[in-house]
């Protein structure tokens, strides 16, 4: 089970990295969305995968049954999903604004903050 998930995580990561290496901000955003999901799957896989044994202590028992699912990764993923979703929403708005204001989605052409023809500092009095 873990092996299958590892391959899946690897596929997610490769797609994300490929998209983030693009110069166009929309593709980078799609890459970031996939990257967030890749990490969530990674946490899920890292926390041991088992099936059909919920982490609930039955009546009259003192401890979890053997091979119970690990609930902690799900708490971690929940946190990570909330965070990555809010960041994605913010960056999506920002990219749209950048497209409106700067007239391009190509990051090579976004040179407003660091202009190409920035003058040298004065060399003498």
């Amino acid at each position, binding site marked *: 089970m873990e092996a299958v998930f590892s391959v899946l995580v690897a596929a997610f990561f490769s797609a994300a990295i490929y998209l983030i290496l693009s110069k166009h*901000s929309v593709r980078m955003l799609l890459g970031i969305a996939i*990257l967030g999901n890749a990490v969530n799957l990674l946490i899920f896989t890292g926390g041991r995968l088992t099936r059909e044994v919920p982490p609930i202590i039955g009546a009259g028992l*003192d401890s979890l049954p053997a091979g119970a699912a690990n609930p902690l990764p799900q708490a971690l993923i929940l946190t990570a999903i909330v965070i990555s979703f809010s960041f994605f929403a913010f960056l999506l708005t920002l990219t749209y604004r950048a497209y409106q204001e700067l007239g391009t989605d190509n990051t090579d052409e976004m040179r407003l*903050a660091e202009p190409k023809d920035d003058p040298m500092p*004065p060399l003498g*009095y």
Partner: protein
Amino acid sequence: MATPSSTPVDLSAAFVMAAPTAGDWLVILPPALMITVGAVLVMVRHRIRLHAPIAIASLGFLVFLDMLLLWKVAVEGPVTMTMGRWLPPFGISFTVDVFGALLALVSAIAALAAGIAAASDVNDSGRRYGFYPFLMLLMAGVSGAFLTGDIFNLYVWFEVLLISSFGLLILGSERQQIDGALKYGILNLLGTTFFLIAVAYLYAIFGTLNMADIAMRVGSLQGAPLMTLSALFVLAFAMKAAAFPVNFWLPASYHTPRITVSALFGGLLTKVGIYALMRVMIMLFPLQREELSLVIGIVAVLTMVLSAIGMLAQNDLRRLVGYAVIAGIGNMLAGVAIGSLAGVSGAIFYALHSIIAMTALYLVVGRAAAISGSWTLEGGGGIYRLAPGFAFLSLAMLLAVAGLPPFSGLWPKIMLVKASLDIGAWWLAAGILVSGFLSTIALGRVFLFAYWRPQAAQTPDAPYGPSAMDWPSLGPIIGLTLLVTAFGLFPEGVIRLSETAAAGLLDPSRYIGSVFATGGAP
């Protein structure tokens, strides 16, 4: 209907039974206070006159709380409070040692200075968009990151401060800011995602997220891929701290927002990255740090020297200060690469100095531009004639950042150079000295062109014209300059505290002892 258990449950096996003392509450109060005040400010967001007084008062209270906390941990050793009464490592622990408390105190001081400066720098529309609530939440993130003892919780605080920094960065929505914020946002989000990936692997390897628990188990672990894990952590934190090959987001964005926001960012954000790097690499993975020390050392030298060259090439004062922030990061990384007690305490002292000095330098540059009417070396000038008193303060700050006596930049550099010569890393010492020399030239040139030279006859390009004495902008500069001078003239206290902090990182037994009072995990 739950059936009653046959045996009575022994609560003390899972819970902290003793009620937390008033002193324990100090551990959680700084982030709790900041979040609460942030929420209150959001509620009164239309009554912008209330924002500045409430925020400045609570930042003052934060400084007071952090002082108490530092005093407590300096006297008693590390203090732990675990959320929800769960016994560690099951609950999220907040563990404060001298290292965390020192950085929390100094960043609260820097934030207080920025909060006061904002009273004159951030206009009504900036306040309506929420400058002060964002400032409070940013400080919640920064304090939380310095005080937490749980590595996933550290990630959460990183995100809290990151999202508040986005809000601050685009305040005003100018075209330049949107350009800078896009690069800052994407690269920083990637950096924290790397951190999260590393945390996922760490959890898979150790099965715990409590830092004290990890520090305890790391020695007895056989055959785990700890080198890969450490390399990932180094990459993630180097990205957050703006170390050389992954630092391009900083010069792209730090000069675009209002100068108070730049001051906050330059003082605080990169230092949180350095803090996390030191906490993880020195306390949790000392053997792996030893293995990676050559890589970290090379990165440190490249960061220092290249950013000093970057300083020489800048015409815009704000961008010049941005490169000065990166040069400081190189010095702290050198301390991490050395790894001895002297090296680590030098790096800690440098971090404290850098938080104060970088905040102050951005504020100085902002006021200089307000007086001369230009952000550039080319267009500015004449400040020495227009405002001699302020020129004197600026000279003090420029010398402090360059690392010249009698200011606080000198001592950590001496400690770092001596520590690197002690372990025979002459190239590291040479890097620190060359970078210091180049920065001195660049900062000296600032004084030459922007202060001594007569004012260039040119149309002003800075956002606001010359102003008379206004205390909200001058007060913080005076206060921070006094602090930097005091640290420079009487460094013994800070050096002693830095050494205690470094010793606590290198030998975490007291840190572990404070989390697991009984001496081991159940």
